[in-house]
């Protein structure tokens, strides 16, 4: 590994406090050229704070930062960028109303407010073509792209700026495995060319595959840095949480062959994105929806929740044909359908409002439920161990994992019969993930039918009783029990019926 001696960035005794909260305390940390350095830690461990410090978004309360061995104040992202410290943020740094092309040019180094640099667009396009981003039109508005496409643009934008230190904060959370592998190939090539990489991800297998060194953070402190491979999975997890978690996923119960049907979709279709989808949701079962991004999985959830107009096909509940044409109808006690949407920040929560107000939103207007009664939320707050100062705290102050707990609690309080979840663990730390998994399994055991859309195939394998893999708006494969394997899921996602090894070369022809 061509690792240099002087650190590109070195933090010495750095602390960052927000009011009474200590986000980072007395951290010493260094990142070198030519290494991929993964940062691991739970929510609130200080990973994102560290990234923001290095990329100039915030400044340390005490301590100092050296860049290339010289003490430096990184006063703004522009300042950090000028020094070659380029960050790809988890909270996307793309401007929704501008086109892809304009976004790629925005803030390109060395141009400031003067004439725009079109050379970066060509560089970014070349990068996009290497990560399956050819289909992304340069003149499309970013707001019209899918989450995965936006992440691809983010990656191209960051790489086209010729970083010396590339900071990736959950950069691939919405991308599927084959694109992630291509992104990793690019990152490794940059590493070999002497670029330093700081990498945050909650997908452990990604870190295992990519990192040269790993640093663990816990409660705002830097716990340890070691070479990848020095510790096994279990040991690393226990360093992160400070205690050992044996199993990420709860045990799967034996399948009940003739469990009662709750909802069955027959030949469901919508517009030109979904066609002929048939899915049965059973009492006590977790049904998974997998596949590449944007293959129609999300629309199934939206359709069931009454968000789509003029859908085709039948939806049966308890043997009766039902029509769900509004979320208000979906959440009524007669149907009892709840949807935890994909983007918790825009669709799941009202960020500027308190936890208590957010939780009341779903229950308001539902017959037979008193939304103002805190007792209906408490069991779920306890089960999920929601961390907050009080329920009057605004949701925007919470970490991603805790925000998701609020979004879940809000719908669980209704006691739904059918729970629809769109990637509920995206960008969330391991401990929260296990809590959510355990809760979903317990819900299923109590008789709720669960439909889980997931981009992480580990979830489909270990959590779901059966899985429907989507490709181009149709279910191409239905897997259940022991058939839900990584190989089968990947092959079906690419609409291939061979082993993934054979699929590798032709998958994106």
């Amino acid at each position, binding site marked *: 590994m061509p690792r240099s001696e002087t650190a590109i960035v070195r933090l010495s005794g750095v602390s960052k406090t927000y009011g009474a909260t200590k986000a980072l305390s007395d951290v010493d940390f260094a990142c070198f050229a030519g290494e991929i350095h993964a940062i691991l830690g739970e929510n609130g461990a200080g990973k994102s704070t560290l990234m923001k410090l290095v*990329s100039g*978004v915030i400044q340390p309360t005490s301590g100092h930062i050296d860049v290339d061995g010289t003490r430096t104040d990184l006063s*703004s*992202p*522009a300042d*950090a*960028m000028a020094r070659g410290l380029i*960050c790809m*943020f988890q*909270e*996307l*740094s*793309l*401007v*929704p*109303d*501008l*086109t892809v092309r*304009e*976004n790629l*040019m*925005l*803030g390109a*180094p060395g*141009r*400031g*407010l*003067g*004439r*725009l640099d079109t050379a970066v667009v060509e560089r970014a396009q070349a990068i996009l073509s290497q990560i399956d981003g050819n289909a992304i*039109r340069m*003149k*499309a*508005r970013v*707001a019209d792209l899918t989450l995965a496409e936006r992440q691809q643009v983010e990656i191209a*934008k960051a790489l086209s700026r010729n970083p010396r230190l590339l900071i990736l904060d959950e950069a691939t959370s919405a991308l599927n495995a084959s694109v992630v592998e291509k992104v990793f190939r690019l990152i490794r090539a940059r590493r070999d060319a002497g670029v330093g990489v700081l990498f945050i991800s909650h997908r452990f297998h990604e870190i295992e595959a990519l990192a040269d060194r790993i640093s663990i953070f816990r409660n705002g402190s830097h716990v340890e840095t070691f070479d990848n491979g020095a510790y096994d999975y279990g040991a690393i997890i226990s360093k992160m949480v400070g205690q050992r978690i044996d199993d990420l996923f709860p045990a799967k119960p034996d399948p009940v062959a003739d469990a009662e049907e709750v909802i069955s979709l027959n030949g469901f279709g*919508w*517009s030109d994105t979904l066609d002929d989808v048939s899915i049965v949701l059973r009492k006590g079962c977790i049904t998974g929806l997998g596949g590449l991004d944007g293959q129609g999985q999300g*629309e199934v959830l*939206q359709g069931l929740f*009454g*968000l*789509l*107009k*003029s859908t085709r096909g039948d939806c049966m509940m308890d043997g009766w044909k039902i029509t769900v044409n509004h979320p208000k109808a979906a959440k009524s006690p007669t149907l009892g359908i709840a949807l935890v949407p994909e983007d918790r920040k825009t*669709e799941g929560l009202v960020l500027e409002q308190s936890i208590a107000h957010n939780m009341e939103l779903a229950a308001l207007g539902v017959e037979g439920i008193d939304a103002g009664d805190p007792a209906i939320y408490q069991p779920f707050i306890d089960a999920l161990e929601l961390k907050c100062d009080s329920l009057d705290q605004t949701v925007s102050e919470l970490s991603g994992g805790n925000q998701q707990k609020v979004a879940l609690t809000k719908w669980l309080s209704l006691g739904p019969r059918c729970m629809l979840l769109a990637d509920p663990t995206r960008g969330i730390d391991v401990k929260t993930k296990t809590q959510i998994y355990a809760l979903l399994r317990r819900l299923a055991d109590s008789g709720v039918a669960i439909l889980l859309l997931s981009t992480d195939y580990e979830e489909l394998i270990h959590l779901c009783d059966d899985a429907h893999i989507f490709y181009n708006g149709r279910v191409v494969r239905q897997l259940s029990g022991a058939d839900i394997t990584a190989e089968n899921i990947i092959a079906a996602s690419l609409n291939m019926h061979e082993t993934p090894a054979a699929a590798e070369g032709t998958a994106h022809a």
Partner: protein
Amino acid sequence: MRDLLRANQRETIAFSVLVALLVSYLATHPAGPTTYVMTIWANQCLILALAAIAQFFAVIVRGIDLSVGAIMALTNCIASYLVIGTGAEMAFGIIVVLAAGVGCGVLNGLLVVYGRIQPIVVTLATASVFVGLALLLRPTPGGQIDYDLADALTLDVLGVPTALVITAAVIGLIWVPLRRTGLGLGLYAVGSSEQAAFQSGMPVAKIRLASFALGGLFAGLAGLYFSLVTTTGDAGIGPNFTLNSIAAVVLGGVALRGGVGTLTGAIAGAFILKTIGALMFFSGLPPLAQPFVEGLILAAAIAIGGADVLRVKNKLEVFGR
């Protein structure tokens, strides 16, 4: 092409509405489409268009400027003292008038950016200050503008109203080049997502300041052109222009939430608004019914832009509009 149409949909609608209105105006005007009729029409349109451009620069960065009319009043009153005399004196006068406009805009910008006060509050306050200054200068309407200069800029060039030539120049010489710079792009980025712009390394504070300065400049130009058309100074012209400038940018497809719309759209909106007014004047409708009909036309024009919401098949997408 699909993207291009989609991106400029609001502007396309605005321009179609404008053409339809203009044709019916010229058809109903008793004198017909003569250069004289066109010139009077274009002059009135350009005053409001310049005010709408000033408003555009505030709205595009997710702000609003309630002092546009006030800056016009102030610059109009200054012009009524200074834009007269020898060529050098007039040049000096014009520079002072425009500098006053920019100064007012920068003051707004400083209060918004460094005072961290909302634009609506800042400009409400400064509007009173600017009108106060204007009233000190001209307690009653009066003063005079150089007639030769006024004629040169408010009549026609080879049959084409000078106001239209100026409009084209503003678009071709200011807007098109600006759109190709980091500042032009930054205006949209800040208006659409200030956080994303900041994290992309854009100097957000400078961009905001620049947008207010540009707004002030165009409010000053609006005041100056108003002076040339009326050849007098009047401190009381403000309120009307402020409200109409906001209506004009909305009509022209500029989103009040910022980040969406173009300067040409704002100009088209201003022209639409003035043409509706002119149409009413010659329509033969009873004067008392005119505001009612004018309002209906306005509402209909805006509704066309929103009509495609009915075609949206995913209810969530309605909220994104």
